[in-house]
């Protein structure tokens, strides 16, 4: 089976005034055509950095190594010029905060048309027509009029739709959505996810969804991978993550989802403590200080990512003796 995106041994380190920060450590994963992969973790787990590294959008303080093969080419070795032909054309990306992600001084239509104009051989008028068409596709009503409006005349949800329109205007094969709903109202969140799902179906898009919200991905993702402190800790089909959880961190994340039913009297669980310093990580398991199952061994030995079932990997020294966690 060939993958649309195949990442091997990705490391991202940041040079800071305090030293090197290991933001992403030896992360390997792949995404097949048409599927939806959700990358889940707390803030600082390295999930957004992973996405930005793939797009090569990190600033100069970032050191990236590893390999990312996308449609048969390595994203990390190509020139900046070639990379510009991938961004916005073959890979679209949307960001967390639609309030700040659009340029305030240009019309929404101009910003969508621009991405069409630079990647395709077409006239300004054709690009604008395409922009209107895209705005319709993502459910912006009255798109013929709103194409000439500025971002400040759009609501948060509408801006995120405009961002999606911009990201998919050139029919890319991969859409990276970095926390696309975090900054939005709960009611709008569902609408935006619905838009992503519908365009995915209509143009056959592969989606890499980055979020901290396991509840959000429950109905959306095909596969889930969980990250913690820059490492991949568990990855499997969606249902296996939810019902055959093997990693204590994933379990803790699942337990901290507020119950949809809201049973009165149930206490909302949180994960105590903080993630470890990525400047000088402790020797053993990185989750060990906050883990309810931790043993002396966990403090000394760094666990490897091991197969615990069909297409199911988990990083825990005790995965075999703990079994499925509930």
């Amino acid at each position: 089976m060939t993958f649309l995106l195949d990442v091997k041994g990705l490391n991202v380190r940041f040079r800071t005034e305090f030293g090197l920060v290991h933001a992403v450590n030896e992360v390997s994963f792949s995404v097949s055509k048409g599927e939806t992969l959700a990358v889940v973790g707390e803030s600082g787990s390295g999930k957004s950095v992973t996405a930005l590294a793939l797009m090569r959008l990190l600033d100069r303080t970032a050191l990236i190594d590893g390999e990312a093969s996308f449609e048969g080419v390595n994203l990390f070795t190509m020139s900046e010029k070639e990379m510009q032909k991938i961004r916005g054309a073959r890979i679209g990306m949307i960001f967390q905060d639609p309030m700040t992600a659009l340029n305030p001084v240009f019309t929404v239509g101009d910003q969508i048309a621009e991405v069409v104009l630079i990647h395709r051989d077409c006239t300004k008028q054709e690009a604008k027509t395409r922009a209107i068409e895209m705005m319709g596709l993502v459910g912006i009503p009255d798109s013929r009029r709103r194409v000439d409006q500025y971002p400040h005349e759009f609501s948060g949800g509408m801006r995120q739709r405009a961002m999606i329109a911009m990201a998919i205007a050139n029919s890319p094969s991969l859409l990276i959505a970095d926390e696309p709903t975090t900054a939005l109202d709960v009611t709008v969140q569902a609408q935006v996810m619905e838009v992503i799902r519908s365009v995915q179906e209509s143009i056959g898009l592969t989606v890499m969804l980055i979020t901290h919200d396991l509840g959000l991905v429950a109905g959306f993702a095909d596969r889930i991978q969980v990250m913690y402190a820059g490492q991949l800790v568990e990855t499997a089909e969606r249902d296996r993550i939810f019902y055959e959880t093997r990693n204590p961190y994933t379990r803790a994340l699942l337990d901290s989802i507020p119950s949809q039913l809201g049973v009165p009297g149930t206490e909302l669980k949180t994960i105590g403590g903080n993630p470890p310093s990525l400047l000088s990580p402790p020797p053993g398991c990185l989750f060990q200080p906050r883990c309810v199952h931790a043993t002396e061994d966990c403090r000394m030995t760094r666990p490897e990512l091991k197969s615990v079932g069909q297409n199911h990997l988990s990083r825990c020294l005790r995965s075999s003796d703990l079994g499925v966690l509930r």
Partner: protein
Amino acid sequence: MTDLVDVNSREGLGAESLSFGRLALRRFVRHRPAIVSLFLLILMVLAFFFAGRLSNFAFDAVDVTKRLENPSREHPFGTDEIGRDLFVRTMLGGQYSVRVALQVSLLATAIGTILGAIAGYFGRWVDTAISQMINLILIVPALIVLAVFAQRFGGSPVGLALVLSGLLWTRIARVVRGVVMQYKEQEFVLAAKAVGAKPGRIVARHILPNVVGSVLVEITLLLGTAIVLESTLSFLGLGVQPPIPTLGNLIQQSKGAIDDAPLRVLLPGFFVVFFVLFINFLGDGLRDALDPRSKRQ
């Protein structure tokens, strides 16, 4: 990523129990240009006030046999057209310039803080009146006010300081007004009001402590502005009048000798430039130390 680094650094230093003041002090001390500048500034001011006493010459002692002499052991900066020692004169000039600048920054800060606080706290017509006054001062080209009033009062250092303060209080007033307006609706102020505290007490005890940081930064800027304005006015002949020397009128007096002894003209100017340069570094350091969110650039 930044929040992550931040958390770690604070954990690493164990600094969470430090008060804001101690944290600000620590940040300031770590700002090397500001510390070096503060040191040099103190050195410079000490020199202005005391170095002149090391010389055997008085600032106004004329010796026509030693006109326009080059720097020597006896006269480290040389002598002027009528044989006065330029080292003593420059130091004394620096002293007068610094005095004027200090007086201006104290007075302008006092006026600005009081009027700004009144405008911000009472709002309505009081605010309108004070704001229009500020606009009026800003609309007239500064030099006109300075020159018109300097004609009358500006011959003396104190007079010039008064005139400059009358012009320079507006920036601080605007800063203070903004902060006061921002804080007067906050819970702790409303609480103080609710228990019947008087406006003066509320402003002084609950609101003004919040402006100390921004005002400190403004004061450093003010010191720089005042010394530049003083020297510029005196250079144009509109500021402090001879025989009292200031850095500005020293340049004005030796300007005629620019072809023969150019360095003599520039020397007092260098003191102005370095004073302002150090003051600006100091202000930068203070800003970084007092406003943790500001980026260090």
